[in-house]
């Protein structure tokens, strides 16, 4: 089952001030595949994600979704595709409407996209998904600020998954969470994407998180792909010196004599 779902070639993005942030990036994602996009701040990973979703316009290159060229598709024609392409955001506090209850946050998209015909059907679907993401039913009548960070992130995941998308973009979704909560959220996401056969682009600055959830990885730097490959391959035998540098810069939770003094993982100082 190696059917390509998203195929982007030669993507360039130039922001209004004339600064080019992506310089010809090629990315492809197969059905059911989870692809990691990793890089440091300013590498262009978030812009790339937004370009794939047509949230920013590309100045060159093409994006094909499920065989169809969507590079310059007008918004009206994009709309039917929007349900199939979902996003989970970094900060659930900013992406969930604070005035709405969780019930409303989860049911409205279902109604909007006509996925549930009756109120009873909507309620049933929401309840089922709530259980799937291990949130207690009492959450439905709460507002986002009444939930913990991990619970809010699960609401974000539930909202995306309810629409039965083909593709989900997750941008730094665990960077604000504690380790124990992070493990829960990642495990949940992994399970859901397997159950629903989702394709996923998982953007993160954390190589260890990428290694744990992704099949394949793109390492980005300065708006270009520095290295691409299967996680097992890239993490064991990185071809790019930059990937090696990123890996060597991660402090592991075991005493590594000389790690702090080694040159590895440090670029020429400021």
């Amino acid at each position, binding site marked *: 089952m190696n059917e390509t779902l998203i195929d982007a070639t030669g993507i360039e993005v130039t922001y209004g001030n004339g600064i080019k942030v992506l310089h010809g990036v090629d990315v492809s994602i197969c059905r059911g595949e989870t692809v990691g996009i990793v890089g440091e701040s300013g590498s262009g990973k978030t812009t790339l994600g937004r370009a794939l979703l047509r949230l920013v316009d590309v100045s060159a290159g093409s994006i094909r979704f499920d065989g169809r060229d969507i590079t310059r598709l007008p918004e009206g024609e994009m709309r039917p595709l929007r349900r199939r392409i979902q996003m989970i955001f970094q900060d659930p506090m900013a992406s969930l409407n604070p005035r709405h209850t969780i019930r409303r946050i989860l049911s409205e998209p279902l109604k909007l996209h006509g996925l549930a015909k009756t109120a009873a059907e909507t309620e049933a679907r929401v309840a089922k998904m709530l259980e799937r993401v291990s949130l207690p039913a009492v959450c439905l009548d709460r507002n986002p600020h009444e939930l913990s960070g991990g619970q809010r992130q699960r609401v974000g995941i539930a909202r995306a998954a309810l629409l039965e998308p083909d593709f989900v973009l997750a941008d730094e979704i665990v960077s604000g969470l504690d380790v124990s909560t992070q493990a829960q959220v990642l495990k949940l996401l992994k399970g859901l994407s397997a159950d629903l056969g989702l394709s996923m682009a998982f953007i993160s600055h954390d190589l260890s998180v990428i*290694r744990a959830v992704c099949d394949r990885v793109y390492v980005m730097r300065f708006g270009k792909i520095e290295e691409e490959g299967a996680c097992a391959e890239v993490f064991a035998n990185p071809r790019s010196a930059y990937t090696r540098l990123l890996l060597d810069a991660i*402090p592991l*939770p075991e005493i590594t004599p000389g790690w702090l003094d080694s040159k590895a993982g440090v670029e020429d100082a400021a």
Partner: protein
Amino acid sequence: MTAPLLSIENLNAISTRENGAPILRDVSLTLERGEVLGLVGESGAGKSTIAKALLGILPRTVQVTGGAIRFEGRDLMTMPSRALRDLIGTHIALIPQDPQTALNPGRRIEAQLTDALRLRRGLSSKEARARALKLLQEVHIRDPERVLRAYPHELSGGMRQRVLIASAFALEPKLVVADEPTTALDVTVQKQILRLIRDMQRTHGTAVIFVTHDLGVVAQTCDSVTLLYAGKVIEAGRTADVLTAPRHAYTKALLAAGPRYDRPDSGLEPVPPSVFEALRAEIGLG
């Protein structure tokens, strides 16, 4: 026998906002001169509260209900406020978490670095400037003259963090509290900053408390570690012992929850509910 540099003894604190909910429960720890200690825990563990208590900046909503914080034998909790301010201002310094907000955006670096040198050390403007230049060189800033004239927004995040490290060590404090000093930085910059703090700590013989959630940072920088949960010390000891042979189930579970790029098949094990239940029973939470 001289007193340790810092000794926290059965410190208890409550939140006056949440009906007196306990924030710290009988916290005790000791820090020797020149020692590097990691204060670790997930959010709500109380690590920041301890750091704030040490710096005398506890919010009004937190009330210390018992225990002592002894710095070279003197209890900070019972000291007159003027004496307390002088002691903290001279001997305890902070490296803050967010280099974006910790500097005053409207003042040049020179003014911000020399304030304490003039006010606490009584240096003239000229002497303070010379000392600030030296400090910037010590934190490996290549063009210290330019940085002194710069405003914070003209510097990168890593540069700002270097300035803040220079500022923390400016008065030769005996204790530096580093509050998640690398959380906001890229991983390659993080390593430089960790090394810099370690180098400064060794050169100046300063004791450092690293407040962090990252057991990797602890492993590479700290002599000893104290792990907190819900305001209680769960495990404490030499870093090597705690990481290689953790005694508490929670410590083990935390180590198993963190993903590791070098061990794709381990990590990502959520802390089992039974561990949290046992923890809560141990602490005396419902």
